[in-house]
């Protein structure tokens, strides 16, 4: 393990003055904390689950009589995109050197307090003082951020924004609680969260998905949002099994999180995946979280159970360790199938936490989470309530830098993905399902609009090139839009050649293939080099047509007998003969004229 290479000398622990020396090692017994796959019988390939019209999975029971209804709820942790932590002035940065972004408070040194001058005052005073100053002292190898700062205003605003975007009611007064559990990367032994009165409640999220993978059959569904709570992130544990130790990095400890709790309104992996993708788009649009799952900025836990219709919900399991949307769908579908099979074989479902093993494609019990957890929630005594205002309740003479005004944030919300889609449909006359793909693929809308700016081709035609050609090349090569070797300028140039009838559609496809190689040639250069321009000379074209007619007597006979469809075959043959350089309309004209002679 790379982290183990950092010094963890003997004297690192006694006193802070000696510094932590890289990561903090914690002894572990072999394999504790590490979810170990149980080989049998947990890992069977998941059975295909039949889908009902609504897109939900309702597999029939073995008996064929009582169908199973899967129920899926999600808990999503989104790391707030912010320069500093929730209750301390430490910086937030992905992949910084271990334990380099840790304040005394983040490390839970005795006597430190979370600070929230941004919260309501405990006192008689109406005036909120906000200290934005941040001082750094260097202690040995550590840059300690003094806990001078306030509860991060940015974090509060991000949560309010997200709550508004998810149609939540924002609580003007919310409270902080302590949630207790022992874990090596939770230095205080508790996490500050919002259990009793969170910042936002009772919202909803609409998302769309297609049935049976057919773009033309999209359905829109809604999942209720129970609440959004502000809370602290934990540090990171790295388990080094060969040395039986765990290394702790506290850089992430105390970073602001939004926990979004979705009600169990979903019934299969695909629905959950679509809901999470929509949430991810919303967060990214708002800028409240970068929401990159691979970097842990968006973490999804799924609660899964199955039951028969009309009966109470079954015992649920919680599936963790899911680090992509694709795996989310897989993990949930696997878990649904596992529970159904378990129950049909006369077994029972345990209320347990399971981890998804992406390599094996199955879920396995997490050993260290066994047993009942009682988090012993308690009000956080060091933080007064978090008070937000709207324009109506805003006190007079208050400095706007010192309060969060919900209405002000509401007025400045950017266009959400759903609005963006509607605008695309309205503006360009494209189909709703096309707008869906445009918005859901990172950067594709921008690409599409950039092409439009530089071409005379109609949007309806351009979208075909974007979705059929560009996207399938991207998918084939696992590229993002940004990585595409064919830029919007090049594609626009190409489409202009097509639009001006200088090349045929099939020639354009050849040019596109050349462009994908990324050799720096322009479409026009490729056309010239490969001589793909349309044959202008009518005589030349007539000769080629005549040759095709002469060689295909049978077809000519059939056409003359009245089967006009065969003409298309001849057109295709002419196209082949000209290597796509003929104008199909012109070819048809010539052929029809010759055949009617």
């Amino acid at each position, binding site marked *: 393990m790379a982290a183990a290479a950092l010094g963890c000398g003997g004297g690192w*622990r*006694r*006193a*802070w*003055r000696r510094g*932590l020396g890289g990561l*903090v090692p*914690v*002894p*572990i*017994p072999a394999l*504790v*904390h590490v979810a170990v796959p149980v080989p049998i019988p947990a890992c069977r390939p998941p059975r295909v689950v039949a889908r009902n019209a609504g897109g939900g999975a309702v597999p029939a029971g073995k008996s064929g009589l009582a169908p199973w209804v899967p129920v899926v709820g999600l808990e999503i942790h989104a790391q707030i995109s912010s320069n500093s932590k929730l209750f301390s002035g430490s910086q937030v940065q992905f992949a910084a050197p271990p334990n380099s972004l840790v304040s*005394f408070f983040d*490390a*839970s*040194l*005795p*006597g*430190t*307090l*979370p*600070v*929230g*001058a941004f*919260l309501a*005052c*405990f*006192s*008689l*005073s109406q*005036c*909120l*003082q906000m*200290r934005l100053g941040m001082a750094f002292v260097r*202690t040995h190898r550590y840059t*300690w951020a003094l*806990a*001078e700062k*306030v*509860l991060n205003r940015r974090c509060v605003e991000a949560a309010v924004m997200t709550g508004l975007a998810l149609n939540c009611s924002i609580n003007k007064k919310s409270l902080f609680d*302590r949630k*207790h559990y*022992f874990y*090596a990367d939770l*230095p*205080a*032994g*508790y996490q500050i969260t919002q259990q009793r009165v969170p910042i936002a409640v009772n919202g909803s999220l609409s998302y769309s998905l297609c049935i049976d993978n057919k773009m033309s059959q999209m359905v829109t569904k809604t999942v209720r949002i129970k609440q959004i709570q502000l809370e602290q992130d934990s540090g990171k544990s790295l388990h080094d099994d060969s040395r039986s130790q*765990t290394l*702790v990095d506290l850089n992430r400890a105390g970073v602001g999180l939004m926990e979004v709790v979705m009600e169990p309104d979903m019934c299969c992996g695909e629905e959950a995946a679509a809901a999470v993708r929509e949430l991810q788009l919303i967060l990214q649009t708002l800028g409240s979280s970068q929401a990159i799952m691979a970097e842990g900025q968006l973490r999804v836990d799924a609660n899964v159970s199955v039951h028969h219709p009309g009966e109470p919900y079954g015992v649920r399991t919680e599936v963790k360790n899911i680090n992509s949307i694709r795996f989310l769908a897989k993990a949930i579908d696997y878990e649904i199938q596992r529970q159904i099979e378990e129950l049909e074989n006369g077994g029972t479902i345990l209320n347990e936490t399971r981890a998804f093993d992406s390599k094996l494609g199955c879920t396995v019990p997490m050993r260290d989470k066994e047993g009942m957890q*009682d988090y*012993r*929630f*308690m009000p956080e*005594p*060091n*933080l*007064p309530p978090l008070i937000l205002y709207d324009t109506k309740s805003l006190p007079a003479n208050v400095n706007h830098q010192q309060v969060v005004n919900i209405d002000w944030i509401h007025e400045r919300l950017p266009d959400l993905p759903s609005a963006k889609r509607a605008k695309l449909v309205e503006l360009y006359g494209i189909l709703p399902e096309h707008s869906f793909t445009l918005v859901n693929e990172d950067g594709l809308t921008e690409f599409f609009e950039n092409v439009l700016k530089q071409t005379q081709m109609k949007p309806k035609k351009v979208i075909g090139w974007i979705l059929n050609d560009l996207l399938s090349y991207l998918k084939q090569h696992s590229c993002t839009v940004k990585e595409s070797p064919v830029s919007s300028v090049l594609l626009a140039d190409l489409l202009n050649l097509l639009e001006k009838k200088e090349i045929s559609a099939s020639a354009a496809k050849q040019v596109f293939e050349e462009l994908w190689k990324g050799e720096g040639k322009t479409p026009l250069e490729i056309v010239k080099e490969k001589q793909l321009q349309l044959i202008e000379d009518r005589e030349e074209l007539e000769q080629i047509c005549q040759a095709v007619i002469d060689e295909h007597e049978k077809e000519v006979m059939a056409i003359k007998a009245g089967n006009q469809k065969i003409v298309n075959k001849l057109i295709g043959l002419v196209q082949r003969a000209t290597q796509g350089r003929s104008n199909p309309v012109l070819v048809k004209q010539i052929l029809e004229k010759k055949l009617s002679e």
Partner: protein
Amino acid sequence: MLRASLRQVSAALKEGQVTPTELCQRCLSLIKSTKLLNAYITVAEETALKQAEESEKRYRRGQPLGILDGIPIAVKDNFNTAGIETTCASNMLKGYIPPYNATVVQKLQDQGAVLLGKTNLDEFAMGSGSTDGVFGPVRNPWSYSRQYKEKSVPKSDSEREEFKWVITGGSSGGSAAAVSSFTCFAALGSDTGGSTRNPAAHCGVVGLKPTYGLISRHGLIPLVNSMDVPGILTRCVDDAAVVLGSLAGHDPKDSTTIQDVFQPFELPSLPDVSKLCIGIPKEYNAPGLSSEILSVWSKAADLFKNAGAKVIEVSLPHTHYSIVCYHVLCTAEVASNMARFDGLEYGHRSDVNKSTESMYAATRREGFNDVVRGRILSGNYFLLKQNYENYFVKAQKVRRLIANDFVKVFGSGVDILLTPTTLNDAVPYMEFIKEDNRTRSTQDDILTQAANMAGLPAINVPTALSERGLPVGLQFIGRSFQEKQLLTVAKWFEKQVKFPMIQLEEVKGA
């Protein structure tokens, strides 16, 4: 010189009658000769002399930082002191050297005070005797006073003197003993249920618990966050006002401190109490209150009456529930606050390394004493999902009722409440330890912790000597943030009672 008040010695420093270094050295040598008291856990001799030297330079330049410049002070060992070991009298933090100063420590140093050392306490301030720390019990300096010896230690007694030494009360017993034995001019304590006022009463010094939120808790290793207040121990009320003035005010590092700017005040030299209404809460005539203290209390009431004040009996009807309520809230917060001591980032770590969990368990078992572990256990019990409503939530409601009792009384026109601070004078150590910590705390906190529940300011003023020659103190409780009025009354009372100075003889074991 060492017996002077803080104001007097400050004047002497200014006039050059004594230098900060001389003063510091004298205190240090007295600390050495009274070592038996066990008032200090750590004596920071080197840094203290350095600070004194700096102070001396300022005086020589004629630019002292203020009244505290060059004044030797002591700090309870549950306040973080940068570079100086901070132990909470626990194995868990033995050898722990914090990288930062508590706000109150920083404020004292910024005003030139000289930090002599860290004073002894009950482990993590859990106790009322200063007997339950890992560094051993603190001895009350009055055990070695002529007053006590004359009355309670018959010369021909075959019983050894050693046997008869009395406790300081607690948990800030080290700070109280340090002030009482003249080793420093003021000391910081902490007060969660009476931990400053109780030892102040037993050691015959002034002990002030300010209003919750007036002084920053940042850097005070917490017992109960919603009740903890840094306490001030001095030899007279005026000195307490000086120290309060240097510590009070908003701290951005503690969200529970008031935002308003605090105006330091001087107390009138001839205080007048004739226009005041003094409330005598009848519930404070609690079971177990010694007749001696009862009589001191009623004499005090008479003093006010004779001075023209209105003295009325009042009722704080929920006082009886205070102890049980306190027990639930205190242990719950203790369970939570102690969770961070897991042996990973700092402090003691057990050698047991079979698994992380076994390491946690062994670390906490080796690091905490029975009292701390017992409170953690009860606290976790009260916070369990199935118990939370029945215990924690109920206790919070009761707390509200107790606080409302005070609101009503003060709303009815009462300015200050006058009560005893303790049920008895200090008991000999051998007697004290016959009962366990929990029973003792329950008895001893009974008259003091309601003020913590309500967040009110309260002060112990030494009043008289008991028949055994030991100090008896009375408590004044004031309105929130009305420290000036509270201290004014306390100063007037102090002038009336003329509490005798301790006649400290040689401190040595038999």
